[in-house]
């Protein structure tokens, strides 16, 4: 599997480490339903068969956390973008 790192260029996936679903947002710990929200955030996953947005960390490259879009049925990767918006260098 080859991941198109926006900084390093296309690299084999073994340079990266994986952290799953990138559509989740860390809940507000002060919110009334914080426990419920954190439970869902930490444990529940859509786990789709198809397009999946997921976190990959380029541990052996530029050390960026990338938001990669990949089809879980074919492993085809349609894009990879840094977690930080531009103007927010790592």
């Amino acid at each position, binding site marked *: 599997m080859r991941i198109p790192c926006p900084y390093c260029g296309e690299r084999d996936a073994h340079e990266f480490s*994986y952290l799953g679903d990138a559509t989740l947002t860390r809940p507000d710990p002060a919110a009334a339903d914080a426990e419920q929200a954190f439970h869902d955030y930490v444990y529940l996953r*859509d786990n789709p068969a198809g397009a999946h947005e997921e976190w990959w960390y380029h541990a052996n490259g530029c050390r960026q956390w990338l938001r990669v879009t990949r089809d879980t049925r074919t492993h085809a990767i349609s894009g990879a973008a840094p977690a930080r918006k531009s103007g927010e260098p790592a």
Partner: protein
Amino acid sequence: MRYSFLSILANGLSGQKGWTPTWRDAAPKPGYDVIIVGGGGHGLATAYYLAKVHGIRNVAVIEKSVIGSGNAGRNTTIIRSNYLLPGNEPFYEWSMKLWEGLEQELNYNAMVSQRGILNLFHSDAQRDAYARRGNAMRLAGVDSKLMDKAGVRAMYPFLNFDNARFPIQGGLLQARAGTARHDAVVWGYARGADRLGVDIVQNCEVTGFLREGDAIVGVETSRGDIRAGKVAVAVAGSSSRVAAMAGLRLPMESHVLQAFVSEGLKPMVDGVITFGAGHFYISQSDKGGLVFGGDIDGYNSYAQRGNLPVIEDVCEGGMALMPRIGRLRLLRHWGGIMDMSMDGSPIIDRTPVPGLYLNAGWCYGGFKATPASGWCFAHLLATGAPHDTAGAFRLDRFRTGHLIDEKGVGAQPNLH
């Protein structure tokens, strides 16, 4: 037909004319007391024990392809009950006990072979962790033996003892562990369930659930709607997809685990060996192939295949542990889709949706669990209460914090 030396003799003489189908290829009826979604080992075992133990025989097993075509037929056939945590150990030991009587129970030779599993350790810390586990096993009445380097050398003299990056210091042995012929387990349960009146419906894909109010009262399938008193889902690898049809999100990711087999060889590895300093485990099938594997690839996947880095990693581990295998050849590799749960342990529970029951989250350990999984799921379906040995496999444990995390890596499925 009952299988015996005699039946083989008779058919040998009659030119093999007398054999009959091992199970009926049933057409779906309009309704059943229980529908089991998923014709893998777990689903078929559940049906078998529902009929055998609980007398519930108006049961259908619905399989989208042919039975045993999922993980039941794609694993490395290891059976063991060498678990650490109280939530797991009694269950897997119950499974081991069922394995030990399975062939006579089913009148089908599943080649349950208790040649032992040896987990190697390479440091004092690992030794102590295995001692903790071995002692936990003893507390649960399970056999375990802590072996030193000399003991391991006597068992497997060909391992790399003298030039290892991570020298072998010893191992934890469960002598009653071993392997079983995975396909035969599926066919044996199918035959057993079929003879008790269970319908095994193949090439029938579930496309949705029938509802009455909140409750689920059946399934929509590629072969029409089928009503049921209870719907039991046992589709490891696809659990999230099926649960989504019922509006459920599960604490689970689907990952690919690769498995490997070598060309056939004369006997060289008697039992199962796991390498403690790398991701590698190995056994040898009765046909002579070395059956081995390692880590999951580590990314969500529904494709039944993996990639080279893990293949190389597994073989590096193999060569590090057994340098004599360098000239042996990898014959086939393939991938299975695992339900990787958030704490690495399974779920056998009712769901928040009335009428829907879930058997899922087996990670890469589902095969060895087949008999007890079927037994306990059947118990839950028949009695409405979890079986004693599966009481910890609750869906709400992530909410309550009663996690069963053998590895202690937390809510990151690809690390379990």
